[in-house]
């Protein structure tokens, strides 16, 4: 049975060897892309379309978070890293950035919460614990539950920057990871307030999930307002590559930014970067 084990191992290694073959044409071969879970589904869809147009190419998308994508790209473990946060200075020195789109960050409440717009001051008070009952901002007599994102998440960083708050100022009752986790947590709690990607929030609200996207200082979070800049709370979606990207890498990044795939961005509620 050890022979069997060795056989399996050998087979596996042999199989891996085959996978690494790089074709010589510019659009053939294999691209490894890792990083942001926000971007992964979109890039995978674009990758599928790229493969349809270039049958020799294989685009393998893996998730694991923005930092993973950035470090994989820096170490050469991946051809392209996906990031939904800004790069630090040290990271910028080692990598080439390609801005591909914009995502808004929306504040969400439970659908049964009558509040539908909040001012910047009210939001700061809500998230820092200054207001702990919805009555104080025009809602029902119900305790506020603040849903916050885990440390290091891109959404959190941009959210704090927008409201000019230090990390420890937020008085969180719950901490969540992925967007959907946040949306479910708010949809299951009439007193909850949280923040998620405008894309994810819009898609879920349209499908009948019990959440409401609220206006910040009368700015409504929609795809349209994110696109034309009327909604200020946004973050960039970025692809990063090593300093000397291969022809296939460049071809794929061009493809990602091509108008021909803009419909895919809309499916996820993101706004493609202007040409």
């Amino acid at each position, binding site marked *: 049975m050890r022979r069997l084990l060795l056989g399996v191992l050998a087979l596996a290694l042999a199989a891996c060897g085959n996978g690494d073959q790089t074709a010589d044409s510019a659009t053939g071969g294999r691209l490894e892309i890792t990083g942001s879970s926000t971007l992964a589904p979109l890039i995978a869809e674009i990758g599928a379309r790229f493969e349809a147009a270039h049958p020799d190419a294989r685009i393998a998308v893996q998730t694991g978070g923005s930092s993973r994508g950035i470090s994989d790209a820096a170490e050469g473990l991946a051809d392209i890293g996906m990031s939904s946060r800004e790069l630090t200075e040290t990271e910028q020195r080692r990598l080439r950035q390609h801005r591909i789109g914009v995502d808004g960050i929306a504040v969400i409440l439970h659908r049964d919460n009558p509040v539908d717009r909040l001012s910047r001051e009210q939001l700061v008070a809500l998230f820092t614990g200054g207001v702990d009952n919805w009555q104080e901002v025009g809602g029902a007599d119900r305790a506020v539950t603040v849903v916050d994102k885990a440390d290091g998440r891109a959404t959190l960083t941009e959210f704090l920057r927008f409201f000019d708050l230090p990390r420890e100022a937020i008085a969180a009752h719950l*901490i969540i990871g992925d967007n959907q986790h946040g949306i479910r947590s708010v949809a299951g709690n009439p007193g909850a307030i949280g923040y998620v990607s405008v894309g994810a929030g819009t898609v879920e609200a349209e499908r009948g999930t019990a959440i409401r996207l609220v206006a910040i200082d009368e700015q409504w979070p929609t795809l349209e307002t994110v696109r034309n800049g009327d909604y200020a709370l946004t973050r960039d979606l970025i692809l990063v590559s090593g300093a000397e990207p291969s022809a296939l890498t460049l071809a794929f990044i061009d493809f990602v930014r091509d108008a021909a795939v803009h419909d895919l961005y809309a499916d996820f509620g993101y706004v493609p970067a202007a040409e």
Partner: protein
Amino acid sequence: MSPQRSEQLLLIPLRLAAMSAAVICFLIVALLVLESLPALNNIGWRLLSDANWRPTPAAADGAFRVTPMVVATLVITAGAVLLAAPLGLASALFCRFYASPSVAVVYRRLVELLAGIPGVIYGFWGLVVLVPLLGAWRPPGASLLAASLVLALMILPTVALISESAMRAVPQRYVRAAAALGLSRWGTIRSVILPSARRGILTAVILATGRAIGETLAVVMVVGNIVRFPSGLMEPVRALTGNIALEMGYASGDHRSALFFSGLVLTGLVMVLVLFANRLGHRGAISDA
């Protein structure tokens, strides 16, 4: 070739196979230690003494106390095991001695089915059904209790299935002897079945504890993930596994290393538990003889 010699030859691959578990263990611990070294060097005792958990890529800027998460992990696991062990044991007894054969088969199928359902599904069920229910009573609902309940359901099949197979292993002549003595059903279970199956039941509980302590996704979804010492059943806390899952993809530098240290602590906890449980098992075995 003499029989003894072929016996010896057969033993070599068996021993090698048995070593594989130890080798994997060693590699895992080695990896965790290696990756934890930066945190141990740069953060050191602050992993215990800092005021809270505010991780940053550079050790000097952040705070890195992991103790609340250690305690929370232990409490969540204890809660889950305390719930699942008796319920699982009773389920096994039900299957083996109380239910009619046809009911037992259906019941066993259901339990087997649930042994294979991913933590994601338990977690999602917890997030969508259980947490809002608890939250209606006392918000936010995502809490230590929610995590223990979801985990208990998750590990219950393990306890039930393995203890049942341990009960099946009790020699029939014991049961026959008990019947001959005129012992009642409960009498037989209490004085014959449970004592002889004790080792297997202990195994079941240890395996279930392992699964509970290591479950990641289900816990993250329902526990609330606030880093603090548990102060009540309805309080949100954060487990060590959850800490790794939430932050690993977004961590770099000393923060990343501190997360590996979380993994190391977790594995250390499991080792201590195993030693403890084995001592317990041994003592029982000796008093048994």
